[in-house]
Every structure is written in structure tokens, then in C-alpha cells.
């Protein structure tokens, strides 16, 4: 959380995160660039420029595969949520690796002619009407431009400027970038490989991304947030005994939005489930120091009014609650962000819980 924009708000966990990822990428590049030529022992080795391009290209593919596995893994097992915390940094790192790959390619395959190398990239192969020999470079260009766009707009300034829903939609282009990258590799290097180890790794990586997303989606369908049935503008959330102190129950509203009903020391309050930062699931968060804390990036809100504590200015909508017998009901119409709503005491709340 921040009251002013700084390039990066570093903390110990971000250093650790970036450090681990950087070590992984550096090791990948080191063994690819300096160890593998010794193992290959080709009498006439692969051109250093091609070897470098392949190293950075393969690294970018593995990095993007890892990035896209983090989301579903965190949905399948919450212990992976810390990997989500600083994923943007890893995405920016991936962009730099991809730019390096493109640099080696353009400066090698498209240079040394009388034409501008960037123009040559566009006109050298124009066999767009056939599958074999299709100019696979365009898929790479699309992926790279998308990664660049996402890296440039990855800062919270852009999220605030574009609004979280637009920002989220824009950043879901990462899937298009990955699909395009898969096409880039499939129509490119894989067409010429005699050794199919890379093909197996590549297909395995892409299937891993697709499989994890499919499994997470299936889990969501089976165990995910349930829609409530509307009656006179209210829906039942759960029974009064269902919400543990400090936590929430989530319900899907008729319009598709989600509401999170929290139990804070025996009193119920409802806020939007979507964090104002990146639409993280507040209802899967926890009340820490009297504030709902988002499980993704730790943004915090007062559960009674949906406002972040001063000096922060983020706000989320609140909802009206009522009890009907032992059922908790929420009004489907949201209050404007930041609207205070008197908490509803649980009937069987012990006095000390309420006091606490």
C-alpha cells in the first residue's frame, strides 16, 4: 500500500523473491551458454549469436510458463500465494530476457543486408497463406510487444490510472502473449528439431499451464464461491455459525459480483470481495489488527466502511446485512465505496468475543 508512487516499494520478501528468481534465471543462462557447448562438442559449433538467442528465448519461455503456473497453483493450494505476491517483478524480468532474445535474432538473422533490419523482419518471409514456413516471427513480435506493454503498465500508477478492472483485463493479455509464444516456437524452432527433447519439454510446459488452469477452474466449479438466491433484493449468505472470527464467507451476487461477509469479533460486516488494488479476493483474506487484509498484496480495509486506514485512500463498496433466524442475509445492492454500515452483532456471540 502506498500514498505516493515510488518505482519499487522494496521489502525483505520482495528482495528474497527477486533474488531466488534471478538466481534461477542466471543459472539457466549460465548452463545453457557456457556448459552446454562443452556437452554438445560439435566440431563446427552453433553460431554464438544463435546459441545466445536460443538461450534467452528458451529462458523467456520457461519463465513465462512458470509465471502462468503461479496463478492456478495459488488457487489450488493457498501456500503458493507468496509466489503471487511479487509476480510482476518476474514478469518484467521476463520481458528483459525476451528483448535480449529478439535483439540477438534481429542483429543476426535480419542484419548484414542492404535493408533496414527491422523492415527485413517484416518482409523477408511473407508466406502468410501456408502453415509450413509461416512467418513465425510475427508471433514472437506480438508476444514481445504484449510483454512490453504489460511491463510498462505493471506499476500501480497505471492500475490506478486505468482502474483495476481495465488493468486486469489488459494484463490478461499475458495469455494471448503465451499462446502467441507457443505458436512462435511451434512454427519456428520445433519444425527443424531432430532431437525431440526440447519438443517434449515445450509441450510439457504448455500442457502444464493449460492443465493447472483447467484443474483450478474445475475446483472453482466444485468448491468455489456459490451464487445466492435473490429474494426481494436480499440473498442468504450462510448460517450464523458458519463464519469463523476474523474470516469471511463469500457469495456470488445475481449480477456476478462477489460479496465477502466478515465476522469481526462477533459482529458481521460485508464488503465487496474485490480488492481495489488488483481485484484480489478479500473474502479469502483475514482480519489483522482490525483490518481486512487482502491475501494477494496485503492491502487493508476497515470492514465497516470499506476504507483503507489513513493516509491510504483505497475504498471498496460495502453491503447491508441482516439476520433472518439463524441465517445471514446480504442486500444485493452495494453501497457506494467507503460507506459506513453498522455491523450486525451475532446473536450467539460471547461477550468476550464482542469485547475483544
Amino acid at each position, binding site marked *: 500500500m502506498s500514498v505516493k508512487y515510488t518505482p519499487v516499494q522494496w521489502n525483505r520478501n520482495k528482495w528474497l523473491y527477486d533474488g531466488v528468481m534471478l538466481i534461477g534465471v542466471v543459472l539457466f543462462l549460465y548452463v545453457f551458454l557456457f556448459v552446454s557447448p562443452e556437452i554438445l562438442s560439435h566440431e563446427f559449433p552453433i553460431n554464438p549469436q544463435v546459441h545466445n538467442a536460443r538461450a534467452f528465448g528458451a529462458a523467456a519461455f520457461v519463465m513465462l510458463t512458470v509465471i502462468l503456473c503461479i496463478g492456478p497453483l495459488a488457487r489450488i493450494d493457498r501456500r503458493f500465494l507468496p509466489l503471487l*505476491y511479487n509476480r510482476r517483478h518476474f514478469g518484467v524480468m521476463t520481458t528483459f530476457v525476451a528483448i535480449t532474445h529478439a535483439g540477438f535474432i534481429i542483429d543476426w538473422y535480419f542484419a548484414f543486408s542492404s535493408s533496414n533490419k527491422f523492415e527485413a523482419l517484416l518482409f523477408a518471409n511473407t508466406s502468410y497463406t501456408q502453415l509450413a514456413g509461416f512467418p513465425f516471427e510475427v508471433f514472437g513480435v506480438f508476444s514481445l510487444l504484449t510483454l512490453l506493454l504489460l511491463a510498462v503498465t505493471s506499476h500501480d500508477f497505471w492500475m490506478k490510472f486505468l482502474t483495476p478492472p481495465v488493468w486486469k483485463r489488459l494484463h490478461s493479455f499475458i495469455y494471448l502473449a503465451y499462446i502467441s509464444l507457443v505458436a512462435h516456437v511451434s512454427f519456428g524452432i520445433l519444425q527443424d528439431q531432430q532431437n525431440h527433447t526440447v519438443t517434449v519439454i515445450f509441450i510439457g510446459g504448455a500442457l502444464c499451464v493449460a492443465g493447472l488452469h483447467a484443474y483450478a477452474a474445475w475446483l472453482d466449479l466444485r468448491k468455489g464461491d456459490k451464487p445466492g438466491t435473490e429474494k426481494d433484493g436480499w440473498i442468504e449468505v450462510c448460517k450464523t455459525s458458519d463464519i469463523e472470527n476474523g474470516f469471511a464467507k463469500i457469495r456470488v451476487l445475481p449480477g456476478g459480483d462477489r460479496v465477502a461477509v466478515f465476522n469481526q469479533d462477533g459482529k458481521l460486516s460485508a464488503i465487496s470481495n474485490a480488492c481495489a488494488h488488483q481485484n484480489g479476493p478479500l473474502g479469502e483474506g483475514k482480519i489483522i489488527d482490525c483490518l481486512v487484509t487482502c491475501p494477494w498484496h496485503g492491502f487493508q480495509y476497515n470492514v465497516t466502511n470499506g476504507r483503507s486506514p489513513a493516509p491510504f485512500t483505497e475504498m471498496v463498496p460495502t453491503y447491508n446485512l441482516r439476520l433472518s433466524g439463524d441465517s445471514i442475509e446480504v442486500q444485493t445492492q452495494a453501497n457506494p465505496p467507503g460507506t459506513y454500515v453498522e455491523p450486525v452483532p451475532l446473536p450467539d456471540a460471547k461477550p468476550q468475543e464482542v469485547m475483544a
Partner: protein
Amino acid sequence: MSQNDKPFFVGYFPIPGQLKGFLALISVGVVLLFLLAGLVIGSTQDDPGQSGFRFDYGRQTVTGVVELTPYPILRVTEGNDLIKPGKTLMLAAAGKSGVDARAAPHEGGLVQVSGIVLQRGTIDMLQLAGGQRGLSAAEGDTPEFDTEPLGRWKLAGEICDGKCLNGAMRPGRGLAHKACAALCLINEVPPVFVSSQPVEGSDFMLITGLDGGRLPDMAYDFIGQFITLEGELERRGDILVLRMDPETLEVIDG
């Protein structure tokens, strides 16, 4: 298990004790994943073949007769220890450039050429040095050379550029190299056909249009693809020249 007992990670707080072991394990796993992926992908790349610039031979200077196929070749008349008389060399300039404009005025004439050899199997190319150092008219008798017709052939293989195939790029053929090959050919580097089976003792041959002109434009779409085509084959010294019939070009599936 109560939700309260489950670890809850907040980025700006210390890592919960229950998560430390798991995250340490994941960190080691991620690092190992990258290490192994780099090692396996890097060390299973295909051998690009025995071809390349022979800088180790030093600059070679020989004399011979320029023939235009229309791509310039040199029929060597006065060689050296490495390049013997009777050898035929394809010619190219530095980078992705041919030497058509420089060679054309010397068609049928005796020239001295100087440059670096590119070698792959039975086919050789000379990358000429710039200006007069690389190609200049030579004094002496100009012998006549025969062109031996070898009849019509149907061949399977791929079209690529002669310079990259000869090792200017390793790898220098295939679909991943198609754009580079096309750029070379646009810039007048001699095109070659790589046959899947040796023909008259050679896997490679210079390829031209049926009328002996430049490679037809339609062939550019099939660079790097496994194709069959028919054409008139001829021998010029120790090099084969295939005059392709565009009507017969077919892509081989798979």
C-alpha cells in the same frame, strides 16, 4: 483445522513460520527447475553440420573464369595448395550480399579473386574481399569450359541460400532459417538445392530458373520446406546446376 491455524502470508510482514519450510522447498525447486531446463534444452540442440568460414585457411587468392548461371561462379584456372585448378567456386560478398554487379562485367573473362572460403562437404564458396582486392580482371589466356548436360531429374530436398548453408550461419537451413535465407536470396546470394539423396556424387547444387535465369519468385514461399521438383541438371566443373521447372514443385507432407 481452523482457518486461524492456517498460515497467512502478507508480503510486508515476516514470513509465517509454518510457511518457511514450504517456501524454502519451492525456492530450491524453482532454482533447480531453471538449472535443469537450461542444461537439458541447451545440451540437446542439433548438430548444425560440418560447415563454416575457414578463417583458419587464411585469405585465398586464385584466378579463374567468371560464369554467370546467372549467379556468378568461378572456374578456377590457377589455384593454390588448397584450391586446385578445375575447382568451381560460388561467389558471394560479405554479409547477405551477392557479387552479381561486380562479376557481371567480367562474364567469360579471366579474373583474380581473393577472399575467405566457406566450406560444406563438396561445395565451396568464396566470400570475396571488398573492391579490387576481392575481384579484379587478370591477364592471361581465357580457357573455354564445358557445361555437361545431365538430363532431367526429379529431386527431393529443400531450397536455401548457398552462403548460410555453407556455414555462414550454423544452423543455416530449415524452416526456422527461412526468413534469413529469403533475405540472402533477395540480396543475390546464390541459392542452392539440398537434395535428400546424393546426385552425381553431390548433395548440393546451385539452383536457377528453368530458362537459366534467377530463381523464380514463387520458389521463395517454399524455402526451407521439404519439396520435390523437376529440372534440367548440368555440371559445371565440380559443381551441379539445377534449372528448376516451377510447374513441378510440390510440397511433401510431413
